[in-house]
């Protein structure tokens, strides 16, 4: 095995064998699944919460004064009570809240007061508002001489189905899904560049502060050491991706098997027909996306982006001693374009062909992230080609320059060099 290979395998295996790696690699998908489960659980639970509400209607808005029962809401109309007398009693009589509707002008939009011991949940209060609005609308319709039933028949509800026409035929697009895939890819690259970039920096700092750098570079060229470290850590990142994807895939099969009730509950609100149509829609949406192309581009931009930034992080690690604060100072200018890339990416999600998005996806320091924002849309071939070429070129140039800073930096102890000195190291020959 050649020396770079040896360095790569050391960097890779020492990290992969660490308990913390196992922990994060296995825990993260578990946390994501648990998060899923929690959301489902809450929506199921939250939905079944019944509110019993006392209503004192002095305006005659709810005319017939019969109690109204809805899915999670029961309105009980009071007689022979006043606001001030009942305010102190509703809790003891088993009501969750007390709504007071005074006399008011039907043509104006009034404010009503609802008393409750705790803050009413958003869903409950919006449901009550809806009920009142419905009653008020009916009153106004009748006053205007319109039959409320006729009116609800007249009301329109149009759905737009976006079909994308490509050479391979027409496909149905699901806007939300494309958006989600783009965003997920972008945020993954963003996170991985920062997390694994700083790992490269820490690794270099470790070698420097442990004083092993000089021992190693008497056997290996500094450039081989730097490259080996970067590639080894990049491989750790890819391994983590692979494990996550496999684990999440497996869990999605396993969870419904282990907790069949939960899944049943989660979907009980939706009819079978709806369930089928939602699933079909997601499948259709996914099939509309060029998944292979997305996967390939994601992999390319992750690798190229990581490699480009990792060499910068390695150079920073090589010039600072074990002082965290010094490292922070130097890392900041490197993090800036990454964060900028993320911001442009969120813009690109909505306006994939805006000038900013196009610029951001070609400019090499932001392109790995910004391109992910445009990945589900049709990107002109020349832009893609330019972006990739510029990124690869930047990677070679930066690695060449930072390699020279690294070579000098790892053998320097004591004072942190100035930017000017580092520039000098980078551009001088041999």
């Amino acid at each position: 095995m050649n020396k770079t290979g040896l360095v790569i395998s050391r960097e890779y295996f020492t990290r992969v064998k660490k308990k913390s790696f196992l922990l994060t690699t296995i825990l993260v998908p578990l946390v994501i699944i648990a998060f899923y489960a929690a959301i489902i659980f809450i929506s199921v639970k939250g939905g079944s919460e019944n509110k019993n509400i006392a209503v004192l209607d002095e305006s005659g808005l709810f005319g017939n004064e019969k109690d109204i029962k809805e899915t999670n809401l029961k309105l009980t109309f009071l007689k022979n009570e006043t606001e001030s007398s009942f305010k102190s009693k509703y809790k003891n009589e088993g009501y969750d809240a007390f709504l007071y509707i005074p006399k008011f002008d039907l043509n104006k939009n009034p404010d009503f007061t609802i008393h409750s011991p705790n803050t009413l949940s958003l869903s409950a209060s919006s449901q009550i508002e809806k009920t009142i609005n419905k009653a008020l609308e009916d009153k106004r319709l009748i006053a205007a001489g319109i039959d409320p039933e006729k009116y609800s028949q007249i009301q329109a509800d149009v759905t737009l189905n976006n079909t994308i026409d490509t050479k391979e035929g027409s496909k149905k697009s699901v806007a939300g899904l494309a958006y989600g895939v783009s965003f997920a890819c972008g945020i993954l690259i963003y996170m991985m560049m920062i997390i694994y970039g700083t790992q490269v920096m820490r690794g270099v700092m470790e070698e420097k502060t442990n004083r092993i750098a000089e021992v190693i570079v008497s056997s290996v060229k500094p450039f081989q050491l730097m490259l080996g470290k970067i590639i080894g850590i990049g491989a750790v990142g890819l391994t983590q991706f692979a494990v996550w994807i496999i684990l999440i895939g497996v869990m999605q099969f396993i969870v419904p098997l282990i907790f069949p009730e939960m899944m049943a509950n989660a979907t009980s609100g939706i009819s079978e027909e709806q369930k089928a149509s939602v699933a079909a829609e997601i499948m259709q949406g996914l099939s509309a996306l060029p998944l292979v192309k997305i996967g390939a581009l994601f992999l390319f931009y992750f690798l190229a982006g990581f490699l480009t930034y990792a060499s910068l992080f390695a150079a920073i690690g090589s010039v600072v001693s074990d002082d965290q604060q010094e490292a922070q100072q130097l890392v900041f200018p490197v993090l800036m374009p990454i964060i900028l890339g993320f911001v442009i990416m969120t813009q690109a999600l909505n306006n994939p062909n805006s000038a900013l998005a196009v610029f951001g996806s070609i400019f090499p320091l932001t392109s790995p992230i910004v391109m992910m924002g445009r990945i589900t849309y049709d990107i002109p071939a020349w832009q893609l080609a330019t972006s990739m070429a510029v990124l690869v070129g930047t990677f070679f140039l930066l690695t060449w320059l930072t390699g020279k800073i690294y070579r000098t930096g790892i053998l320097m102890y004591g004072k942190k060099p100035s930017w000017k000195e580092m520039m000098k190291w980078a551009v001088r020959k041999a």
Partner: protein
Amino acid sequence: MNILELHNLKKYFATQKAVDDISFNLKEGSIFGLLGPNGAGKTTLLRMITGIFYPDSGEIMLDGKKFDPLNDIRNIGYMPEERGLYKKMKIGEQVLYLARLKGLSKSEAIQKAKEWFVKFEMESWWNKKVEDLSKGMSQKLQFVTTILHEPRLIILDEPFSGLDPVNANLIKEEIYNIARKGSTIIFSTHRMEQVEEICDHIVLVNKGKKILDGSISGVKNDFKENKFEILIDYNGESNDKFKFIEKGQGQAIIKINENTQPNEILQYFISQNVQIHGFREIMPSLNDIFIKLVENTEKAREFQKFN
């Protein structure tokens, strides 16, 4: 046969002439001392010999051929002054890793590592981590990693710092052993008593230049000051042949004037009817020579601009 020859090596940094035209030769199988005050350029010189730095000009010849850092690494073992190991890595794995970086195959590395671990009684360390070791223990480990691949040229920068006398002796013995087997050792230190004890040949550098080069006895001879210790009872004064430097009860140190032979002094005292109980030449210690040569230069090198 010279294993290493340096011809007019130069390495300038932005503010310093770290190594300024240094040449010397190293015989195979010798133990060579590279001396010099702090900042004299020793580390830079060693880094060029180990291929970490390229010289600005000059030539390094290894075994009569031009030094090729890529392929000659296998023949060099370097233990730098700023040394260390991966703290979190298991000791066995670490030794194998460093040996394989030098070009040993995995099975070769395992076999050699086991041999040395037995020899130095470190078998129980194999699965421990470096952070579990004391400073002296990790020093011992570092020495093993330096010589494991049986390099022909071994460079040790302050190898005994932090070692207790027992372990220092262990390593000293090993250094002799290795030299006897034909490897050459460069030994860089400013502990002069160790140099006197171990080295055959020394070079002293200061401010990037070589100021002394020779065998220990040769160097001492060159720097002797014609001082003698003489055991006598004598109350007379100095004369034109010698001068008292120190006078004590039954003992004195005298400096003999140039062109005067020690025998003339003895004859003088005999003629004075003085009983001579002992007479011996005082050779300067390396320490004295070192201080004498280095003292007159500024304590620290100044940063200088040059083009």
